């Protein structure tokens, strides 16, 4: 059974222009998927729809065989089970960390699931240790650094052992060390547990770390490509047309040089020219 | 206008808490029902917003600056019931964490700044702005006058709270135990300061922010809480009026005592009726009608006869005053719960009626 099935979805936020026009695709368990697109192309919106936070005006979103509607999510057992199985890592940690201490933050989801207190405390210990934030247990989230906040946010999702993680620009605003730590954790999770990862980003450098398959959204909110990450990365014309890379102009003496330009990994390069 | 501890005695702050408890419960029930889960974090953040705007410096004519409470503004943006909750939370945090306002005075402060101010200000705004288009000047004008009137009304109630202290709480020698200034000083002092200065600050701040939203985001001015339920709309007015009346209740003892008048006509006890009858009969011999005698002997024995604690019916005026207020407060709490119970039963009947008709799509939900 596929994890998600999106069928001809059209969505617009109330009072705004459409964010998604006729998007369709399927997600299988254990896949690593990325939504690529420039800012405003609708990738975050797509994640919100997958998490049942908003509902499409046309078309349908099906998760684990159930159609995602407001009524379906209010009804146990599917509602609470869905919330447990799908975790959403928001772009801005300030919205995601709304409890008074890190410990309470981690306890929030398990308490909503009515787990026994002993189990909850055990899981809190384990999760804090996994993400190396045990020393932050009694701290208030707003006083933590960006990287620490991200780890606390991730911990608050992982504690209930979801099978799907939705990530919205996960490395935005993080320093290099925190970025690499986060990417490492996600890779480990996928390798060891077969977790389905769906990332929304405009940063192409993340692609090799987070995705095997990429869906590209154009600036007019349509799905224009659905292929392996490798193929998408080498499709320069496509990337140019959706504003994920830029055409680059520079001068050498009297010669003007124009070529599409993107670096995925560190490398030295020379331009062959006369 | 944050009242500290020690200014109000328990005879005032306890009834204030009682009134606020009833209003908070009603407010939470309303918000939960009409706005669902979405508003819960918004209330908390709205309280943080309300707190922070109290720190903004607002320039006023004369070259000085002042601070606004912002309760009327919050009412225009969130609706009056949500504003009551939002400002209450801000005030509670101010009192507990920052010592701005007393802890025993939380009830009274919330009554003044989270109930009187936003409700009166909001009603004024609605009356002036009505259903005029979003760009009409009546909106910011309504905001200005609403802010000014709302704060002045709050100051009036605060002045009354101060003013009755010497009347209802003094020691054996007649010295005031709490705020020492009577109504003749407290009320004018509070009114003048707020009418002339702080109310203007409030009005200016409210007007300018409303104008800002008129220019940039007119849809935010739409009232966010559904206030269409007619019966419930009377409750805040009622509760407020009751609260004020309870606090003023001792006047009903003081004034007659001042004029040496006896009980109201027709409300005599058996002793009093004897002397009344004596006045009108030619033989000047009073008697107690048999029916009355029997009723007194075998009838219902009230728990608080003559609104006084049992055994204290003939005590001196200060003791009686205290009991009077206590009786009023007890009566209010009982009435409040009865009203809420009835409203709840009525609402449940309404809901059952609505769900039974499948095609009915209520615009209110």
């Amino acid at each position: 059974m596929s994890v998600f099935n999106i069928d001809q979805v059209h969505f617009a936020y109330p009072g705004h222009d459409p964010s998604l026009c006729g998007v369709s695709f399927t997600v299988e368990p254990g896949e690593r998927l990325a939504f690529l697109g420039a800012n405003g192309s609708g990738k975050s919106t797509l994640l919100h729809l997958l998490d049942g936070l908003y509902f499409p005006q046309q078309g349908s979103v099906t998760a684990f065989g159930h159609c995602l509607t407001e009524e379906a999510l209010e009804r146990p057992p599917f509602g609470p089970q869905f919330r447990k199985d799908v975790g959403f890592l928001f772009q801005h940690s300030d919205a995601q960390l709304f409890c008074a201490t890190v410990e309470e933050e981690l306890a929030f989801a398990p308490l909503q699931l009515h787990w026994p207190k002993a189990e909850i405390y055990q899981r809190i210990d384990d999760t804090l240790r996994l993400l190396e934030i045990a020393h932050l247990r009694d701290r208030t989230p707003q006083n933590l650094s960006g990287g620490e906040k991200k780890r606390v946010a991730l911990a608050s999702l992982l504690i209930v052992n979801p099978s799907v993680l939705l990530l919205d620009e996960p490395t935005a605003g993080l320093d290099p060390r925190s970025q690499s730590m986060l990417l490492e954790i996600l890779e480990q999770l996928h390798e060891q547990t077969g977790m389905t990862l769906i990332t929304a980003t405009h940063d192409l450098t993340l692609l090799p770390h987070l995705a095997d398959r990429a869906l590209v959204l154009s600036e007019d909110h349509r799905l224009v490509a659905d292929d392996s990450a490798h193929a998408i990365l080498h499709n320069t014309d496509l990337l140019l047309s959706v504003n994920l890379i830029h055409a680059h102009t520079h001068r050498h003496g009297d010669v003007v040089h124009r070529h599409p330009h993107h670096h995925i990994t560190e490398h030295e390069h020379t331009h062959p020219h006369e | 206008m944050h009242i500290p501890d020690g200014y109000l005695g328990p005879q005032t702050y306890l009834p204030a808490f009682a009134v606020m408890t009833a209003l908070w419960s009603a407010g939470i029930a309303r918000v939960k029902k009409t706005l669902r889960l979405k508003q819960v974090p918004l209330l908390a953040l709205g309280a943080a917003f309300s707190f922070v705007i109290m720190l903004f410096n607002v320039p006023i004519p004369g070259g000085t600056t002042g601070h606004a409470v912002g309760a009327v503004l919050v009412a225009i943006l969130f609706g009056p019931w949500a504003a009551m909750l939002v400002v209450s939370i801000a005030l509670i945090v101010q009192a507990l964490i920052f010592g701005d306002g007393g802890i025993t005075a939380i009830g009274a402060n919330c009554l003044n700044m989270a109930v009187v101010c936003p409700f009166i200000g909001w009603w004024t705004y609605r009356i002036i702005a009505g259903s005029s288009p979003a760009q009409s000047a009546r909106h910011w004008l309504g905001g200005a006058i609403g802010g000014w009137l709302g704060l002045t009304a709050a100051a009036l109630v605060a002045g009354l709270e101060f003013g009755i202290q010497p009347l209802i709480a003094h020691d054996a020698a007649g010295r005031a135990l709490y705020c020492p200034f009577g109504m003749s000083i407290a009320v004018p002092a509070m009114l003048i300061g707020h009418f002339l200065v702080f109310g203007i600050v409030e009005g200016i701040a409210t007007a300018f922010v409303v104008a800002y939203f008129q220019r940039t985001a007119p849809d935010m001015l739409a009232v966010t809480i559904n206030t269409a339920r007619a019966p419930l709309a009377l409750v805040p007015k009622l509760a407020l009026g009751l609260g004020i009346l309870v606090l003023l209740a001792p006047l009903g003892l003081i004034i007659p005592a001042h004029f040496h008048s006896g009980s109201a006509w027709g409300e005599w006890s058996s002793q009093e009726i004897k002397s009344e009858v004596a006045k009108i009969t030619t033989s000047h011999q009073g008697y107690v009608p048999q029916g009355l005698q029997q009723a007194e002997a075998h009838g219902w024995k009230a728990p608080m006869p003559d609104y006084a604690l049992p055994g204290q019916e003939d005590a001196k005026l200060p003791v009686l005053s205290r009991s009077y207020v206590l009786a009023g407060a007890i009566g209010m709490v009982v009435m409040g719960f009865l009203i809420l119970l009835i409203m709840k039963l009525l609402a449940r009947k309404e809901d059952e009626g609505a769900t039974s008709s499948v095609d009915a799509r209520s615009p209110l939900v």
Partner: protein
Amino acid sequence: MQLPPWMLDRRSCNATVGAPVSPPAHRQHNLARNAMGSFARLLEELLANETIAARSGLLQLVDPRAKVIGLIGLIVVATLVHQLTTLALCYGLCVLFAVCSAIPARRLLRVWPAIPLFSAAIMLPALLNVVTPGHSLLTLWQFSAPHFGPWQVPPALTITDSGLLVVMRFILRTAVCVTLALLLTATTPTHRLFRGLRALGVPKLFVMLLSMMERYLTVFVQAAEEIHLAKISRAIAVTDMRREQAWVAAGMGALFRRTQALGDAVYLAMISRGYTGDIYLLEEPRWQVTDWAFLMIVVGFATVMLMVG
């Protein structure tokens, strides 16, 4: 890229356009700076409380629920007693608790002048015989005529013993109440303080709203600071009052939009983690011997106070 000529002409950097610029008016610069001052003080206060709450002292050991019941109970008792000696004794107990809980003396003493300013304005007239009649202690002014305008005046304006008593009782009572509140908030981390209110029957929803509000307070103060800082850095010349008011309003408006946006985002985050409207809290640990001992002290003392005063 074609830059406009006035950008290329480096000399025009120093020239002014239009009327000569006068230095920013004192009071208008102060408008933004004063607000910044309040924000800074607010954050400082939050931090100071957390620092003391982190120390190891007597009151820090007591469960917040016991402190809430005990200390707020004492505040209520303080409003019920009227003897100066009883109130003074209560203040003594406060000082004792403060000393045992590593609360710096500075913090304690700050209570006295901080008894709000309008207190002084209220209290000074209460000393006088025109407000509180009694036996005169000190004559301030002799009136020559029995009437001052429309009011009838006594022969002299004096400070009376009753007036003195009323004022001293008032000040002492307020100081005791404020100190007790200080003991509560300075020795308890804020989120545990709000949870402790459950002991007084405060509903869970309120506790959640209070702690969420406090948790986001710093976020909002920082946002407000940014708004004011932007204003200070751009203040060049005097603008009229209306512009200033419009600016303050825009600042409030911007802050409100932030409120709405953040409120929506937090709501989504809560829903995403399974929130359906019910609030569950992690349990507080059981009451210990220290908590009962503290309550015993407080209840005993309160009884003594009520008996005596």
